[in-house]
């Protein structure tokens, strides 16, 4: 599975530019689903038949990035953030554009470190002039973080674990489950990082009886970190709330019961800030019961996001078990 994870996380795909990762996922899941289509927002919607009720899983394909807004006469690029970026973690990092162009993020001279804001930063793609730069990159192009996958043994590090690790889990679960208890709509969503947009329209089209988002969540297990009772290696997390959603209590209880029945370790998650596709799914039409399975992830929204491989493996078992267990509400 690590090879699948490597392929999926290293793939290019900032919000609104998910086509490359979508093609990769299409090829991976084709033999294991009954139907597939791409909707108007670029969501990849795969159907695996199995029952009368409809369950929707959402794992977002998009990752954070930088959109070029200006090319100056010396060939430096200015950018706007795509998704939530922190200038502190951008400085010195590299970005990769779809055509393979690599750029380094540099900063203007600062009087003090606290003056570091996104508009002081620029991307240097090694061009000497505006013309040089524009031969490679133009306004509106989006660069993603450029960082390769590293297997640290128990733990895995890469850019875009948020939420490609969830994509990988959903792919793997589709491969594992032979006979689901529902018509399973596996949706690889777009534009989550800029406002849960893909999931919203996908849920409208599908109108599932139950929606489960798969994503990463923050942890409280690093030195002097935020206070949060989620750690790497303690199993997938069953979300209780974040800024976008109060998970439907019956769905949370159902998920906990499934984990207990299958002997899958899990932890409960209360996330103070941040949102997930479940927030959009739950408020679709007349309301849809929704829950979230999260994978604990350190250093979210940086070029080096870290997850625990045992959490990932348990996550696959968990998602597969949910697919096989009828939800009675």
């Amino acid at each position, binding site marked *: 599975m690590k090879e699948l994870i490597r392929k999926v996380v290293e793939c290019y795909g900032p*919000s*609104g530019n998910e086509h490359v990762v979508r093609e990769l996922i299409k090829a991976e899941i084709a033999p294991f689903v009954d139907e597939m289509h791409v*909707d*108007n*927002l670029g*969501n990849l919607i795969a159907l695996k038949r199995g029952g009368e009720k409809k369950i929707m899983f959402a794992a977002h394909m998009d990752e954070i990035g930088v*959109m070029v*807004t*200006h090319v*100056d006469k010396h060939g430096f690029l*200015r950018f*706007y953030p*795509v998704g939530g970026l922190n200038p502190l973690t951008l400085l010195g990092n590299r970005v990769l554009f779809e055509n393979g162009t690599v750029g380094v993020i540099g900063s203007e001279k600062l009087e003090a470190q606290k003056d570091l804001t996104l*508009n002081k930063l620029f991307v240097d793609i090694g061009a000497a002039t505006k013309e040089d730069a524009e031969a490679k990159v133009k*306004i*509106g192009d989006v660069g993603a973080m450029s960082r390769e996958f590293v297997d640290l043994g128990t733990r895995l590090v890469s850019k875009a674990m948020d939420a490609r690790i969830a994509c990988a889990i959903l792919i793997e679960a589709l491969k594992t489950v032979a006979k689901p208890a529902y018509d399973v709509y596996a949706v690889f969503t777009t*534009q989550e990082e*800029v*406002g849960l*947009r893909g999931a*919203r*329209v*996908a849920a*409208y*089209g599908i109108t599932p009886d139950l929606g489960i988002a798969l994503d990463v969540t923050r942890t409280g297990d690093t030195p002097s970190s935020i206070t949060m009772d989620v750690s790497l290696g303690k199993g997938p997390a069953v979300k209780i709330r974040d800024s976008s959603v109060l998970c439907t209590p019956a769905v949370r209880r159902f998920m906990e019961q499934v984990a207990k029945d299958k002997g899958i370790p899990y932890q409960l998650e209360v996330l103070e800030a941040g949102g997930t596709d479940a927030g959009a799914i739950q408020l679709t039409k007349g309301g849809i019961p929704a829950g979230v399975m999260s994978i604990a992830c350190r250093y979210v929204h940086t070029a080096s996001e870290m997850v625990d491989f045992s959490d990932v493996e348990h996550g696959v078992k968990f998602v597969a078990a949910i697919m096989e267990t009828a939800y009675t509400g």
Partner: protein
Amino acid sequence: MLLKELSQAFGPSGCEGEVREVLTQALGAAVGVWQKDALGNLIAVKESTRGPKVMLAAHMDECGLMVSSIDKSGLLRFRKVGGLDDRVLVSKHVVIGSKRVAGVIGAKAIHLQKPEERNQVITLSNLYIDIGAKSKEEAERLVKLGDYAVFATEFGYLSESVVKGKSFDDRAGCAVLAEVLREEYAFTLYGAFTVQEEIGLRGAGVAAYALEPDMAVVLEGTTCNDLPGSEEHGYCTSLGSGPAITIMDASVVCDKRMIGELERLAREHNIPMQYKRSITGGSDAGRINQTKSGVPVVVISVPCRYIHSPVSMLSLKDFEHTVKLVKLFLRSIEGGFVL
């Protein structure tokens, strides 16, 4: 000139009736069927049995003020409708209600200010509209609570090709849409003049929900800040550099295929165009894009300096190029451009 009439029409969010009137009068026989929905969106329907359903949208509403209380002294306290900057309010002429009662936003004269007051922004709570009434009773004969006010700005030419007026955001977009609607197309075209954009993109969402278009083009008058005090990399759009295409803003990622087609048309027909180089702020496109199972959208804007203030400015060349580009895009749909 329709842009002049639209600019001078009274139409803050929730009170767009006069703009609707100007549009239906001006377009007359060019539009066979008009629909008005429950929120007040005005929709020009040009139906065809062939081709995709295309929605064009421009919002009729403008930023304004609303009377929130009337003092014993006859002065009017007010609230803002839409994103106006407190700093642009002081000492402006306004008109209140459809009878256009004239008023002035008053402020303490410099002689009476304490030294420290001279360096402070006068906030909304210290501002009032003076309509020359001597008492609450006298004021109430002219205005009532809930009446809207807008800036009293005359449309005018600054040069042959540059005009000034209020609310080019988005009366410029309305004027572009009106020009486009004067022609016939071989597919179903909905020209949606929307309401309440400035207070939360409210009209466009319900219009798109009812129309279920296959694609949508949003026409805007957008920020332009090619001005002193902003670095070149901070410019959003430049006046005179042609229609601005949005790639992404806070509310939407525009459809790449539609952007690509607009780029191609601009290149082939020698129309200058630029990209909107700022992604802050939203537009009706966000709401349309997120309607039902999703609608591919693109935003084409006429660059306007000083929007959300008493007076904005645009280049008529940009305006004409925008009309031309939108028409070419629609002809391209006729010619088989599909998503």
